[in-house]
């Protein structure tokens, strides 16, 4: 997006490599926490730049380019990589030096990219990554011999071990920024015969360094024999996903209670300390009650991302895509859509961005349109609040929690409705007979703690930034809207009824009365448009302000358990499965599709579904 703040003086080094070669682990090891994540201008491909401090005290800029199978792009990711290497992106400088990262256990595939890069003529070094795994597998690669055969320097690296990049750093330390103007590189797209010729060369080199043995069945193959087994595989997948959702509820309970107690304690302490004033109202009722009720869901979001990152790092995610490909295919989606859709369980925005790996534009559009129906983590606070208030905490057979089961069911409803919408979308318009899958199933790895922690920290940072900025600002605005104008003298009802928010809520309540929402919920839905979880904070603020005196510091859960009927609660759950609540998602869709048409269609269909689902839920639940 914007120019990196790192001084432009040091040489710029690009990390290039096939997907799944351990490039990001290497990048994390080289740059540690000195990373800056943004987007490339005009596209939503993630741009990761970091700084390496070399032993001699120099600063070297390192750019982690998106993984690519070749320099002839088929996806926007690969396009970025090719354009930067060829010096075709106006706003990006062509790298001074290229580190081609290869998976030492899969050189047969990886070396073709090395040969292509060599043709570019940029100064480069080949990193034989995962060299420890290769050694353990009995693949002994003589780096100096390989270097002689390739005609470029080769160093062995271990991206998951501290000190595993020492020899690479030594090389990077010696690079100088070249002087003089750069020449644009001539690039000719290779024909099939050229690629075939490269592969002959790869085989020759592998033969020369004694690494051309293709093993029989590897450990990964043996794991796959179980995990991809047609009957056992889906059962394992279901068990894994179910375990994740149970953990999100069970493990998070203690830290959530602690955060809640901390916020309540702080509120009580401040309440006793400060004299009654506007400032006290803003701080205790507005900021603390609002932000605290969102912050309390941080443990659940951490646990969810913890599992997603582990599944990703271990190599299980593409297997899940493989297993679900037929089901996805039955509604006209590619198995590739699974990874964007799974990311959407955390947040639809990275999910929608991840659809760029889908080559077919129609597939991609359909995936974008259904991504917001996946239960994102911002819905979790709302679900969690209503479930804990209305669903009894009871153990069913086998120690399963009823609350966890209801949560699981909400996720399933989201998935099923997404499939139904995809089916309708894909039936309109000409059907494409051939949908590509072509998904790599990388060898299994133990997840690496460092990468897990860096990934987790980046998610926590995004969440806390949201809490600290958008959510905090909305809470203050909402508090103001809910506090002014002040009730007239002699008024009997709670103060908020006389405020702007009270009037707005009363107006919306007319629209939402048929689906059982009271005016407090109707008010909370307004700031919820900015971010779904804000609705919980808004309810916190609304109820804090409408409660009289003593109740102010009380938890929201018992309050709503008292004042809502069960049909209202269920109706709100149904609303949240479908409603187009998050404006940032719609903005992302606009940017990804480059048109207002699709975000508008998305908002309309989701609003329609939400209203219909809530109406039906409310009416049926009211019968009992």
């Amino acid at each position, binding site marked *: 997006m914007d120019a990196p703040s790192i001084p432009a003086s040091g040489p710029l080094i690009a990390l290039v490599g096939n997907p799944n070669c351990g490039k990001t682990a290497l990048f994390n090891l080289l740059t540690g926490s000195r990373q800056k994540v943004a987007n490339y201008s005009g596209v939503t491909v993630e741009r990761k730049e970091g700084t390496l401090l070399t032993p001699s005290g120099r600063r070297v800029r390192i750019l982690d380019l998106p993984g690519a199978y070749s320099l002839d792009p088929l996806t926007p990711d690969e396009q970025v990589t090719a354009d930067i290497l060829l010096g075709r992106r106006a706003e990006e400088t062509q790298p001074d030096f290229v580190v081609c990262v290869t998976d030492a256990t899969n050189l047969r*595939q990886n070396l073709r990219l090395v040969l292509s890069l060599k043709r570019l003529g940029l100064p480069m070094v080949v990193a034989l990554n995962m060299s420890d795994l290769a050694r353990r597998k009995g693949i002994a690669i003589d780096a100096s011999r390989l270097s002689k055969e390739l005609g470029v320097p080769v160093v062995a690296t271990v991206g998951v071990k501290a000190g595993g990049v020492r020899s690479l750093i030594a090389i990077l330390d010696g690079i100088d920024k070249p002087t003089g103007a750069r020449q644009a590189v001539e690039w000719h797209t290779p024909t099939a015969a050229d*690629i*075939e010729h490269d592969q002959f060369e790869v085989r*020759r080199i592998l033969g020369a360094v004694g690494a051309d043995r293709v093993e029989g069945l590897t450990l990964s*193959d043996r794991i796959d024999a179980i995990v991809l087994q047609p009957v056992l595989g*889906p059962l394992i997948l279901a068990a894994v996903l179910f375990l994740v959702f149970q953990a999100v509820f069970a493990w998070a309970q203690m830290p959530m209670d602690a955060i809640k107690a901390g916020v309540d304690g702080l509120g009580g302490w401040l309440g006793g300390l400060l004299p009654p004033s506007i400032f006290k109202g803003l701080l205790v009722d507005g900021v603390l009650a609002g932000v605290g009720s969102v912050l309390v869901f941080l443990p659940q979001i951490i646990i969810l991302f913890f599992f997603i990152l582990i599944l990703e790092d271990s190599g299980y995610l593409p297997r899940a*895509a493989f297993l679900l490909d037929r089901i996805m295919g039955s509604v006209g989606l590619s198995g590739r859509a699974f990874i964007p859709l799974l990311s959407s369980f955390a947040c639809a925005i990275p999910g929608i961005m991840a659809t760029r790996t889908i080559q077919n534009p129609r597939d991609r559009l359909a995936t974008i349109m259904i991504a917001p129906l996946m239960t994102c983590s911002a819905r979790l606070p709302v679900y969690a609040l209503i479930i804990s208030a209305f669903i009894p905490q009871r153990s069913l057979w086998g120690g399963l929690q009823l609350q966890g089961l209801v949560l699981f069911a909400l996720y399933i409803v989201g998935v099923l409705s997404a499939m139904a919408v995809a089916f309708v979308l894909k039936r309109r318009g000409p059907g494409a007979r*051939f949908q590509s899958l*072509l998904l790599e199933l990388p060898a299994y790895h133990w997840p690496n703690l460092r990468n897990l922690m860096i990934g987790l920290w980046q998610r926590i940072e995004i969440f806390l930034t949201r809490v600290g900025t958008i959510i905090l600002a909305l809470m203050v605005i909402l508090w103001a809207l809910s506090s002014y104008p002040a009730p007239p003298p002699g008024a009997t009802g709670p103060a908020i009824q006389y405020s702007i928010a009270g009037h707005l809520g009363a107006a919306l309540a007319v629209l939402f009365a048929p689906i059982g929402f009271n005016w407090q919920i109707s008010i909370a839905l307004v700031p919820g448009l900015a971010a779904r979880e804000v609705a919980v904070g808004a309810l916190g603020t609304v109820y804090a302000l409408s409660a009289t005196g003593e109740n102010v510091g009380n938890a929201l859960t018992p309050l709503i358990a008292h004042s809502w009927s069960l049909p209202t609660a269920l109706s709100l759950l149904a609303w949240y499965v479908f409603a187009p609540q998050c404006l940032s998602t719609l903005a992302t869709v606009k940017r990804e599709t480059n048109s207002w048409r699709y975000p508008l269609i998305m908002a309309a269909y989701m609003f329609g579904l939400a209203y219909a689902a809530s109406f039906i839920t409310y009416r049926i639940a009211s019968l009992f």
Partner: protein
Amino acid sequence: MNTPSRKHDSCADRPHVGLSELPSGTLARVVSVGPVDTAAPPELTRRLSELGFLPGELVRIVGRGLFSREPIAVRVGTGTFALRLFEASCIRVCPEQTRTV
């Protein structure tokens, strides 16, 4: 080490099948990669080549989906890819005679 052309020739007198028809677990060698249906995406052949489905490489189907026997997981060289059957049918292979698993 075998020269590429000899590998190629060793398949010349044996029957070729589409990779989609190869039984699971059978080792086979790629003979050629090319479109079998004009409606298939034109970049498919190039991408299959770029992923390593190239004449002379060893392939083996290591997993299959539950319904329609699709998709298939194919080990090629030292990597594994999930393919749909129409993608696999673009790859002509000849089964290796000696080693089957």
